[in-house]
């Protein structure tokens, strides 16, 4: 089955132009060179990719050019869907077929900033097509002092927060395929494992899952990894490279 997702030429062209102009952050971190020769597909859901920066992070890390279409006959080791919000049934079916035939699928939720209505659709789609139960976004910084001691003396121009105290950073701790501690992205989507293994948590909250589906593995991330990849987070880079090489 060959499907194409609302390929408005203008949109795709605009997206491609944006991606070509993306210049990964030049941190010269050890091991920050893009991967080559990895058998992956990076799927660009266009407007349904909520965080373009996440797509860019995967693109830069794995040296992939995003594809706007997905062919279920295509054989690849790993298909990555960054920061998705909505997903139409055709794409979901294609991903299911890929899993059946042995492709691993990395589904990254971008639902943290969706409206309640949009999130409900997101939740139903995951349940229906991938048998994954997710809870409403959890704001990891609610009640914490994200800001802003230095602004207090400039209250006239910088109105707003009245901080209490600083709190520790709510890292996402992955423990498969390697241990990694990655920056949170403010909100996480908690996941319930009906089957499969929890592979990442924030505190005690499960936010990442791996489960076998036919011949493939489904990896679900309830906290976007792509922005950390783009920001050059070495733990995130190592984690993804290990997933890509499995």
């Amino acid at each position: 089955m060959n499907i194409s997702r609302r390929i408005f030429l203008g949109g795709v062209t605009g997206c491609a132009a944006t991606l070509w102009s993306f210049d990964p952050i030049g941190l010269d971190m050890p091991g920050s060179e893009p991967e080559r020769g990895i058998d992956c597909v990076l799927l660009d859901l266009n407007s349904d990719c909520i965080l373009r920066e996440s797509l860019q992070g995967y693109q830069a890390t794995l040296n992939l050019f995003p594809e706007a279409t997905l062919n279920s006959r295509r054989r690849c080791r790993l298909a990555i869907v960054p920061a998705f919000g909505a997903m139409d049934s055709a794409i979901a079916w294609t991903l299911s077929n890929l899993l059946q035939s042995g492709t691993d699928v990395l589904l990254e939720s971008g639902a943290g900033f969706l409206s309640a209505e949009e999130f409900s659709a997101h939740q139903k789609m995951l349940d229906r097509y991938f048998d994954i139960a997710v809870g409403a976004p959890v704001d990891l910084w609610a009640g914490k002092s994200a800001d802003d001691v230095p602004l207090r003396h400039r209250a006239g121009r910088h109105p707003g927060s009245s901080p209490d105290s600083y709190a520790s950073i709510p890292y996402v701790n992955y423990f498969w395929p390697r241990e990694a501690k990655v920056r949170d992205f403010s909100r996480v989507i908690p996941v319930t494992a009906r089957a499969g293994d929890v592979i990442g948590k924030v505190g005690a909250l499960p936010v990442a899952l791996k489960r076998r589906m036919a011949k493939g593995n489904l990896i679900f991330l309830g906290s976007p990894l792509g922005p950390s990849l783009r920001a050059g987070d070495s733990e995130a880079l190592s984690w993804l490279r290990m997933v890509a090489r499995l």
Partner: protein
Amino acid sequence: MKKSIGDNMIPKRWSFERGLELVKKAGYDGIELWLGDVPWFQMETTDAAVGELRRKVEDAGLVVSNVSTGLHWKTPLSARDPNVRSRAIRIVERQLETAQILGCDAVLVVAGLVTQEVPYNEVYQRCLDAMKQLAPLAAKAKVKIGCENCNSEQRFLLTPREFWTFLNDVDSPFVGIHLDVGNIHDTGFAEQWIEMHGPRITRIHLKDVMKKRGRCCDTVYTSLFIGDNNWPAIRAALTKVRYDGWLIAEMEARYRYAQDQQFYDTAADMDRLISGNL
């Protein structure tokens, strides 16, 4: 060099017209308009009403030096939420639109906000994305975007060299630096920023700063010549880079009484700075 002062300095309960009269009388050449900070200039203010502001400014014998905003402190270009970022971009677009209507060629943008929650490298990339997106609009409008150095408050682009690298990465003659000589305080020396950024300086904010001399050893802003800025060095650096643009008073420490007097005193201080007789 020309003198300007922000309309957000106009005492509360004063009308815009009364404020303009004071600004002119105190000897300024222009006025800086703060989008979102004053009742007469909001995001919802129509083009026609903005045109009317221009007429009032010109009737008072002044011009608009630039369009600034403090709205990006609450709606940062570096926010993780894409909806917030869209609103932040729209604010800059509106600044560019209104600058055209007001007949000026520069806007001030606070380009990013590093917090405990949103780390530096994320902020850098998002601000770069935003500026690359906005630069063509600025070029089309022939209005320069000046990213302000709010060093300690933003915790972003803390050194002149970082700022230089950022502007190189943006790579547009329509994106430069709106240099605030008071904001550098504990993180360097204003004169070095002036020397390093010379032709990329779109506008200059003036205020002074007392380093670690406030209560509990805070660094606090103050009126010109009272604080720790090295004004002779700043003046010399301006000469060195041939800066001949707008100097804009941004007095964060306000007079509690006789507020109109601050306009006169600051204008006199600015004249003294421009004269070089320090």
